[in-house]
């Protein structure tokens, strides 16, 4: 694969993946609400089109630069995440020795992108959503860091390719049972979903998204869906063996296995966002700092003991 083909393929993957997440969302909403699904395959495209033909608005005295750039930053971060994922055992679009560290940067810069989105509107609801998101985003990111360091320990490497190879005998989802569930919580936060939707929530009339209309809103919503794809591909890589397949397969089948595993994680993410309640922020902060963070640390210690023995 040359670089240009890979970039185009990644772009198409992000479009197709975002569409798939939107379809999953509609299926989950209909199943939970116990009603017929209705229009399914075209519906995400129709909604996207109605945003694209709409008119972009400007609030009173926004932070103009960040108002324009925040949705694009969020989208770019989702792209960077996907580019890091090794789609075959031969490597990723961006194959660097510390891939998992760069993913950590994607996580923390997402907090910045969401904050700037809320901040720049110069309006009450987006601003409240922005600050609240940062308060929750920090501890959940710490949880994620512990989880990812634990996953890197058996590989004794920060390269995603090495983490995949370290799972040849046993996937991390079995070796470190706490890892994937805790990492899924981070995925809900990165994509502003369900129990971790503190930024764009109903009690803020859409939060950081409340003042948006037209094409920039389409970019913001696409970025949210793309980040779900990016996160799921990363989770499949770190915990489900990435492109590793059954023994009878060949290395060429790697992208297929990774895609299937990514879809499984996506389905879990969508289901969780429709089925689980969101608690008030202060209650969530208590849960994060006193239960989830110590739990992730226990997971890290266990992984360290296992790797040392």
């Amino acid at each position, binding site marked *: 694969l040359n670089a240009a083909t890979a970039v185009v393929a990644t772009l198409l993957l992000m479009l197709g993946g975002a569409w798939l997440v939107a379809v999953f969302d509609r299926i*989950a*909403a209909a199943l*939970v*609400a*116990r*009603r017929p699904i*209705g*229009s399914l395959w*075209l519906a995400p*495209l*129709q*909604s996207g*089109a*109605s945003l*694209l*033909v*709409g*008119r*972009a*608005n400007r*609030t*009173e005295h926004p932070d103009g630069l960040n108002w324009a750039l925040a949705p694009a930053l969020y989208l770019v971060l989702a792209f960077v995440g996907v580019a890091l994922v090794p789609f075959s055992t031969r490597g990723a679009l961006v194959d660097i020795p510390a891939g998992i560290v760069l993913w950590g940067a994607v996580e923390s810069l997402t907090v910045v992108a969401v904050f700037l989105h809320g901040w720049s*509107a*110069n*309006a*009450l*609801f987006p601003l*409240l959503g922005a*600050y*609240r998101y940062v308060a929750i985003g920090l501890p959940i990111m710490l949880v994620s860091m512990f989880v990812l360091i634990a996953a890197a320990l058996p590989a004794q490497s920060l390269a995603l390719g090495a983490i995949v190879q370290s799972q040849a005998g046993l996937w991390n989802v079995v070796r470190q049972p706490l890892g994937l569930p805790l990492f899924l919580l981070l995925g809900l936060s990165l994509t502003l979903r*369900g*129990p971790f*939707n503190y930024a764009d*929530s*109903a*009690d*803020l*009339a*859409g939060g950081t*998204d*409340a*003042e*948006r*209309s*037209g*094409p*920039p*809103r389409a970019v913001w919503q696409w970025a949210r869906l793309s980040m779900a794809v990016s996160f799921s591909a990363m989770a499949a890589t770190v915990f489900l063996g990435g492109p590793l397949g059954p023994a009878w397969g060949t290395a060429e089948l790697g992208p297929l296995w990774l895609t299937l595993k990514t879809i499984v994680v996506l389905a879990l993410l969508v289901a969780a*966002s*429709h*089925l*689980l*309640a*969101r*608690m*008030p*922020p*202060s*209650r969530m902060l208590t849960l994060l700092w006193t239960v989830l963070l110590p739990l992730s640390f226990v997971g890290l210690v266990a992984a360290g003991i296992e790797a040392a023995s």
Partner: protein
Amino acid sequence: VAIAWPWLDRLAATAPVAVFAAVGRDAIERVEDLSLDARIAWVASPRHADVLLVAGEMRSEDAPALRAVHDQIPAPRKTLWWGTAPFQELVSPTVLPLADEALAPILNLHTSLSNSEPNWLPDAPPNPWQGLGPNGQGGKGMMGGVPYGRPMAMTDDDGRDGLPLDQTTVQIGPFLQTWPAGLVLELALQGDVVQHARVVHPPHGPTKDIFEGVSSRLRSAARLLRLLELGSLAERCRWAAAAHDRRQAVDIVALRTAIRRSGAFAALPAGLGACRLDGAPGDIRSRLLAWLGDGADLSKEAATDLKPKLSRLLTGLEWHEAWLVINSFTPQQLHGMALCEKAPAEGDDDPSSGTHPAMEHAH
């Protein structure tokens, strides 16, 4: 910025119509039933809407907010007046009695969007800058005041630990999606914590029978679930309410089980919104549970003189908790509570209250 490709326009025309509902008296259940149709998308912010649905009788004091909300809808836009009298200056508004179905008229309006409505307000700040206090904005020194009608922060002590922090006073309501129709609150916020709350306008009092049926209670539960980001379960409650209205059987036990499994009760802090209502003690959890009951205790809604103060219940809560508490009362209960504490005269002509719409800073 607008993209003009014919095929994109055709695809967009097949999308559900995004409707922002400004709800007045006795119309919320009509709007909630309407939103169950897949051809309608009931949106939370006027920025996301194509059509403004003015549903139910409006009060004259809500007119400025209604005009502002209209102007926040990006053009092209249209308005449907459903069971209420339109503003007199409008040329050929679309008006419909509340008894009629609004779906077809909304779909019709959507096809004629290109002929958009102009602004209803001049594109100017509601307050002038000059002439108020030493720096022109009002307030003390360089802080406080309402420059251009936008409240500015003023340092005040935090009610919980006395730490001095910036405090902003804002008006919330009367037109928000998960919010009692007509309620306008003035909140003094430090971060997202409510330091003081004052009822500016009470919510609309329902004119129908005081008796609350199963379907009304399911709709109340749906509003609370929506605030817990359980939109799909909330929709299930609204479907169940609509089915009950059509005299179909509704399995409330299964519904209650699904809600319990979502962790909704665990997510609500125990003791939040605790008060004695109509003589019976309870908190937000017990009120949600009662709404999802089998209807055995339906007759306990009779009004008594004992009313908790809404402003006291909200003080010290963070934003999300405050919204949950407000939505943990039925419209009847909330109307009774808010009516007792509405300060007459004060607030109505207060220059600092201005003409804030549902969302601050947004014009």
